[in-house]
């Protein structure tokens, strides 16, 4: 049972107050996109054993979605941050690379 820090209301929140939303930083593909892009947007997920960037909603609290970078193996949380971002903040990326030097961010710049 995880405990994540909600960057919006500043609380350390028990997992029972949160709602998990799967992989973060997906790019939406709408009308006019290729079948491949649309398929990848809808169905293709990384599901890594290791470092993962996820969406969480503080559902029973402030109601805000936030993003979390954590290891699914060690349960280390590298940081949580606002959902209104296109990629993990630099300081969180740095913390991840301190643990896993090979890790790179593959999403949008």
């Amino acid at each position, binding site marked *: 049972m995880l405990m994540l820090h909600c960057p919006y209301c500043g609380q350390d929140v*028990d997992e029972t107050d949160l709602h998990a939303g799967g992989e973060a930083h997906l790019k939406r593909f709408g009308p006019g996109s290729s079948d491949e892009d649309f398929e990848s947007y809808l169905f293709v997920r990384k599901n890594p054993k290791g470092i993962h960037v996820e969406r969480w909603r503080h559902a029973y609290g402030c109601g805000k979605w936030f993003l979390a970078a954590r290891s699914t193996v060690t349960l280390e949380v590298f940081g949580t941050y606002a959902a209104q971002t296109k990629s993990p903040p630099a300081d969180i990326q740095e913390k991840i690379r301190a643990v896993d030097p090979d890790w790179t961010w593959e999403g949008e710049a």
Partner: protein
Amino acid sequence: MSTRLSKGGRLIDRTKPLSFSFNGKQMRGYAGDTLASALLANGQTLVGRSFKYHRARGIVASGAEEPNALVNLGEGAKLEPNQRTTTTPLFDGLKAASQNHWPTLEFDVGAINTLLSRFLPAGFYYKMFIHPRPLWKHVYEPFIRKSAGLGKAPTEKDTDTYEHYNAHVDVLIIGGGIAGLSAALAAGQAGARVLLLEQTPVWGGRAAVDMPEIEGKPATEWISDTVAALRGLPTVTMRTSCMGAGVYDHGYVLAYEHLHEGGKQGPRHRLWRIRANQIVTATGAIERPLSFAANDLPGVMLASAVRDYVVNYGVSPGDRTVIVTNNDDAYRTALVLHKSGLTVPMVVDARADPDGPLVRKVCEAGIAVRTGMGIAKVKGLRDVVGVALCSMEGEGAVLEELPCECVAMSGGWSPIVHLWSHCGGKLNWDAEQAMFRPDPNRPPTGADGKGFVITAGTANGHLFTSDVLTDGFTAGAGAAAQAGAKGKAGDAPEGFDEAQEPIQPVWMMPYGAKHKLRAKAWLDYQNDVKVSDVQLAAQEGFESVEHAKRYTTLGMATDQGKLSNINGLAVLSNALGSDIPDVGTTTFRPPYTPISLGSIAGAAKDDLFQPIRKTPIYDWQAANGADFEPVGYWRRPYAFPRREETVHEAVHREVKNTRENVGLLDASTLGKLIVSGPDAGKFLDMMYTNMMSSLPVGKCRYGLMCSENGFLMDDGVVARINEDTWLCHTTSGGADHIHGWMEDWLQCEWWDWKVYVANVTEQYAQVAVVGPKARKVLEALGGMDVSKEALPFMQWADGTLGGIKVRVYRISFSGELSYEIAVDASQGQAFWDALMAAGESHGIMPYGTEALHIMRAEKGFIMIGDETDGTVIPQDLNLNWALSKKKDDYLGKRAHGRSHMDNPDRWKLVGLETLDGSVLPDGAYGIADGTNANGQVNTQGRVTSTYHSPTLGRGIAMGLVHNGPDRMGDVISFTNTHGDPIKAKIVSPVFYDPDGEKQNV
């Protein structure tokens, strides 16, 4: 036979006798006894039968590791099966019954299985029952079900109560032995918020029995001084009878507190949900049995348990006890028994030449010690009557026999690593001490990436008092510092006990035991797994310990192999010719010992089992005969049957009355979301498939919502309130989901759009006034103009009715003249009452959800969840008109262009009319020619909604049918589980008032 000693027993109060019964036999014990100690005090050594062979079984241990002595505790509403006698405190009037035998404990027919044991080897069930298949269902399964399981399942409702409690601490210490006490002292002195848990009712653990010297005092004195000192520390909380059950992610821990048994007020168990910054597991160790033939007979016990019963409860396990060991610790048992005036005919030591201080003390006491020897087998049928001794180096030839009533065995100690391991802590094999112990470099890790569990004392592999105390203290101080406590911990207490010589690992006794002995040497007492079974599994290729476990069932009983795992593992690794650490352990899973289902439920029972959502008119409905049905967490009236009326009849009356006069529906459960802001129109155009930005102020429009997958998700009427504000109705179950869905898109995708959403579902009671006389009723109430001219169909207006502030929507889900009226929820009941009074002369009646469903089906209106199931797109329901062609984008639009969605072969909505007027079964499939690859009949459609229409006097249905709309008039057959297929004609789904004249008046 076991009995009560005339003196001694530090935990019992001989001035407080208690009476209890076992299998109906009245027995006496004392306050402070466990059920196990009381049974032994009454000479009851036979306490149960084993699972597979129904072998006679007695008490082996004195704590949570006990595999045998499980009973049905209590009767009726108090019955609980599989209760461990060694951890059950005795109370007056306790009733226990033994398990797994028929007809009686003493004479058990199932014991015949022992004679058949060579036909019941490892993997027997898998081998025997795989063929022939049909026998499984009718012969094997009923037989196994009857013989499987230990205790009786209760048939009556549990009358006790339970509760949860959430605690947050800096340092949680699990285990109240001297390591845990020492850790608590350090952490408490450092100023950390500490919670110290002990699973038994008393502090001190083994030290209180074995009595080392601590800080120059006898251990018990130090323990009570320390407990008092801890009570004086302001940040320390202590709980006995509270077991650390499981360690989970990010320092989450479940603990199980036993509050009382029988009669008292308040919860019986409390489940602690603890969030700890740091955890110290000072959980101690479990003594291992030795694997010699007939080591499962009642009277064969762990050496430590024997001295526990003598010292703690003043119970003799038998007049003569033979001690068999491979280490020095068991000699303590000899000394304790000797001191109590009991006889120790011999200590049998597998080691060649032991000569430690404890060994010498035993020799000095005049007790015979035989070295390099083992037990070939224990003699006796239902009780120990003696042992046959052999050389450890041989195959088990009997050299000597000794009469005795008890065998106290010790195969060494295994640290209790469960809680360390639950969340991923790793272990190392310590070859010198023959044990797995936690690897401090590989602890379970928390949110900061650092370890959050520190293990201490015997649980960390320390077997000497001084090490245990120092280790505990260091762990406590370290945990406190890690959690941010700033105070000084002070110095660790000092302890002293005798030096010990190394253990000699013995996994089979004797080392070369022949098959006949191995096949009687038990590893897992509860599941009847023997040395020979594990060896057979290895021979048959089960090399992985997890596979061997499942094949043999070793460690899979309710004790989860606390006594058997390490011995079984060692036997397996020997059979495979590998080292123990290479074979590894099975996974340790929570809870440490079983916890009650009641404690897991906590307060969630009866009315509090789950939250029932009630509308403002719920109480009136309940008082007026409503037959409720669940809609999500809501309870809505299905119908209002009157006296002597069936529910079915009531539904028909309600439909007819609404169509002919006027009906009232409580529609408060409909979701109501306010969407407001300069970009609200643009936003709603993305949410809905149709255009909402173009809706004029004051008007209403029916809208559809799709997921990004294109599937229909929700529907409802949207009203434009003002230039920037819309009110969106959702389905009854959908308000929270759609609210969350909107917030998701606004927060995570279009965060620069200026839109706010508020869920005001529960602010309003919403009442639908439906039927040809609806307007008359509202006019009778008086207030705003509700005429066709002032308030036309698909418009809304604010005003007052009967003096109450209302918002009225002219929308219809029944096809009748209909007003949906929203009032503040706090006035919902008053408004309902006013409508009932005003409508009395017009024949007003409330109607329920079933009448609502029938009326919408008569009109061919779809229902989310009936016509849709997460695979249906608007096009399937002929709702193409609601898919805006003017918009470049909306949620689901891209998906509708995928080849499978844009396919003429999709099943489409039609009406269905049975030829005989009967009602089609719900979910029935339309039968097509031929069969598919699996030999199943091909299908060409299915029924999505089906009712008897009181208006038309016949069955009506809607369904999705292949090419349906192009096949009007075709007759197809539908599956029928109760008889021949039913023929139905494809018709328009609008059965009633196809031109919509009635709603628009």
